[in-house]
């Protein structure tokens, strides 16, 4: 399809939808709409929206859907755990008994939903050892933010907030940990890695003080490395009076293997749209399920879903609550999907999924390292990685001039969606981080490996074909460099027209 931007399409007067005209009695009673709008606020001209008919609009967006690879192809997007999204859950969540609920309905009219949410809370408690989950955070980063808000409330309740103004994290944590800590007003201390692939205990000890408000850490990290000293870390931070928050973004390889509370953490976070089978939707609606121990429960955002005398209730967590990180209770339709997915998997299924994801990752690693130009981060750290391994194409780049971005673009030509490279800052040059997970068949994984092998071969034999990729896609390579310039960027069609001088 060669699909124009919709702002260019259509004909004046075409209609995509009608609305009823007000009933006669209504119009008689209140008069025309124009008279009801205060003159100062009446819109003088209609907004310059496109004018198309319904079939044209449908076809336009169907075409655009076909120009989106998504999980039609193979996507091993590391750190994000590509999951099967059972379509039964989509259909259930689309039912009016879920989709047509208003958050201010009386809880007596929401009993089924609250039961599902509560049941899922109980399951996550089992998986984490925590004492209460809330689902208000609308993404993993929002859950990290929730934690920073709770950290403020916790220390404020103790009168220590002014003093405790630092949050400690590692250079391998997800950017959302330092970013939300900073947004919440904390100073961020970022620990570097030592040669073992994680920060040293000494570095931690040096960072900890009576200014320490909290530790925010993931484990294993995005390189598939597990910090075996993590219990000690938690002990040290606790002793200094700080809170410990476990970013469980990389839970897939350790599901049912470890529990955050047993490692001593005060709180943790699961991403339902990553680990628990909820569709990613291109970037939400998502859920960062935030769980904590009894200690932090008074500070949770409210309301909590509780079971009282056989009825499910929405309960205020009390005066210490941080209030809200987002309006209402969270993306509960996504929580229901996660609940359904987890019931379908069952405990055994979760355990098996962790096994398979680790098994496949190590198989991939063995095969990928045979490919010319591919190396592994921390090559000197022996042993098996968990569900991910970080690789580098530095050698390929040095040999051929082909960058990791070129390889990414070229692989798309074979129906393989972009791998994840690495979060900033890049600790290894030209990084890439595929994650096998449990949903792709061995055949798919072998195909992925074969494509990377072929692209490597191309890089060594005919680098231009890789550097000018993609070749089989809806559009060619986008020129991204000018987008940092105010004269070139254009976030809307209005801006584009203006900057291009289009009529």
């Amino acid at each position: 399809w060669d699909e124009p931007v919709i702002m260019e399409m259509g004909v004046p007067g075409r209609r995509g939808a009608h609305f009823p005209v007000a009933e006669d009695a209504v119009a008689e009673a209140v008069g025309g709409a124009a008279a009801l709008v205060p003159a100062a606020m009446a819109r003088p001209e209609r907004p310059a929206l496109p004018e198309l008919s319904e079939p044209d609009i449908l076809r336009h967006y169907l075409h655009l859907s076909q120009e989106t690879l998504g999980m039609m192809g193979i996507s091993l997007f590391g750190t994000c755990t590509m999951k099967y999204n059972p379509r039964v859950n989509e259909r259930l969540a689309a039912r009016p008994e879920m989709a047509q609920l208003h958050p201010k309905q009386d809880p007596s009219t929401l009993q089924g939903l609250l039961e599902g949410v509560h049941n899922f809370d109980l399951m996550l408690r089992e998986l984490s050892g925590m004492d209460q989950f809330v689902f208000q955070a609308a993404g993993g980063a929002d859950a990290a933010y929730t934690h920073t808000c709770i950290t403020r409330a916790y220390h404020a309740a103790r009168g220590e907030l002014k003093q405790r103004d630092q949050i400690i994290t590692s250079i391998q944590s997800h950017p959302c940990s330092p970013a939300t800590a900073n947004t919440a007003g904390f100073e961020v201390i970022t620990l570097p890695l030592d040669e073992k692939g994680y920060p040293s205990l000494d570095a931690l000890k040096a960072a900890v003080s009576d200014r320490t408000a909290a530790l925010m850490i993931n484990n294993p990290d995005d390189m598939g490395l597990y910090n075996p000293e993590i219990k000690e870390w938690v002990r040290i931070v606790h002793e200094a009076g700080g809170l410990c928050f476990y970013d469980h973004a990389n839970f897939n390889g350790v599901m049912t293997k470890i529990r955050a509370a047993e490692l001593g953490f005060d709180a943790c976070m699961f991403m339902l749209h990553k680990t628990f089978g909820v569709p990613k939707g291109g970037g939400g609606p998502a859920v960062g399920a935030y769980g904590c121990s009894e200690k932090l429960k008074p500070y949770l955002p409210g309301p909590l879903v509780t079971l009282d005398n056989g009825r499910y209730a929405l309960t205020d967590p009390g005066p210490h609550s941080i209030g809200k990180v987002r309006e209402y209770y969270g993306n509960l339709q996504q929580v229901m999907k996660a609940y359904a997915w987890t019931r379908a998997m069952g405990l055994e299924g979760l355990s098996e999924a962790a096994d398979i994801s680790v098994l496949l990752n190590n198989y991939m690693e063995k095969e990928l390292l045979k490919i010319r130009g591919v190396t592994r981060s921390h090559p000197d750290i022996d042993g098996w990685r968990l569900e991910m391994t970080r690789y580098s194409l530095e050698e390929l780049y040095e040999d051929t001039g082909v960058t990791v971005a070129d390889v990414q673009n070229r692989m798309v030509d074979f129906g393989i969606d972009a791998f994840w490279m690495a979060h900033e800052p890049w600790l290894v040059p030209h990084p890439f981080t595929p994650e096998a997970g449990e949903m792709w068949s061995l055949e798919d994984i072998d195909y992925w490996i074969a494509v990377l092998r072929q692209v490597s071969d191309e890089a060594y034999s005919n680098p231009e074909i890789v550097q000018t990729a993609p070749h089989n896609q809806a559009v060619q390579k986008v020129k991204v460099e000018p987008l940092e310039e105010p004269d070139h960027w254009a976030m809307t069609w209005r801006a584009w027209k203006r900057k291009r001088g289009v009529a």
Partner: protein
Amino acid sequence: MKEAVRRAHPFMPNSVDSIKQELLQELGIDSVEALFEQIPASHRVAGTFNFPPTLSAEVELNRHISTLLAKNQSCESHLSFLGGGCWQHYVPAVCQEIMSRSEFLTPVWGTPSSDHGRNQVWFEFNSQLGELIAADMVGMPVYSWGCATGHAIRMASRLTGRHKVLLPRILDPERRAVIANYCEPEEMPSHIAMVDIASDPATGALDLADLKKHLDESVAAVYLETPNYLGIIETQAEEIAAMARAAGAETIVGVDPLSLGILKAPGDYGADIIVGSTQPMGVPMSCGGGLGGFIASRDEPRYAHEYPTLMLSIADTAREGEVGFSMALMHQSSYGSREDGKDWTGNSTYLHAIAGAVYLSLLGPEGMRELGELIIQRAHYAAQRLNTVEGISVPRQQGFFKEFVVNFDGVGKSVAEINAALLERGIFGGIDLTETFPELGRSALYCVTELHTQTDIDHLANTLQEVCS
């Protein structure tokens, strides 16, 4: 239900013994347990899990979940007048059709080429929204209106170097609670003080005298909404923006996009930053799971460089005359700069932008107008009708959009009692304001949209008459 024999799980193609054996052999190990060597034994789970039975059979799972959901009562089974931050609007089937396409449901983050179609839809959403609100720059959506406002206030604070925001007293308590977290407690060095501005009790419009009193050089931003939480159309918006500008403060306007077929666009009366909800544009409520927010502004580097959101730009491609789409200004996001980025970003509500793009295309300029006219007419009709019910009054009969306050002081029952009685009769009454806005007495916020026919409104009035007498 017991499982007689181990069987491969339908979600896991490699959940087959032969494949697992093959992989173990490739790795030269006997058991997958060996691969977890990094985790010390003392870290491993001790004890068991208390987990409910596995429902790997879809027929069972479907029954379980649908039985759960059937315990709910919905705004479809009941006649609902709830609004106030999450609204029941009609979701056209084409929005659902497109939003549920597997291609849009499943992607994460590809290349500009592999994501091309989706990126174009996003750009079309931002572009159409830009027309609606009259703004050249629109960021990718955030979690909610409240979150958008919180970020906008922080943007204003960074832009001005000031740490105070003036907000209307009439504000959704949910949204206010969200904003409060963005403004940080006073203990924090970058704390932003929140100061309430009173409203004219008669009109509900912002009290300009009170505003003037607080508007000085310490103010980073004036935040106003139109229609506001109680449905009132702010008629002095242009004046307020001018006052703010004169004081060196930013004007942030929160707006219901569905009002903009008939109401003036914020960009046309001086708004610097515009925020609002994406939920009304083709997204079902889902008990609040349909929320989403937007942040927009004029296209000036000064604003552009303070956005915490991702920014999607149209761009040329390597092929002459062809356009594509890509993220701009990534370096200023938390992905690009960790704690040095602007606030933070992450997974958001981008799927809703797809519904929104379809929604705005379907409505177009005339659909937006029709919708706005229908809502304002029906809402006023409802206000008139309810005002005729013995004991019930609607203090403001004019100047609102789809929501309005209904007062029950003349009825010998609390709003909670009245709502309970309505519920028994299949009606969800309006949001109880008694505790959140005690100055309004026993009041409730009623919401009337294109979904409420005259018959529905008359039915409400008759039922209230019955309930209140």
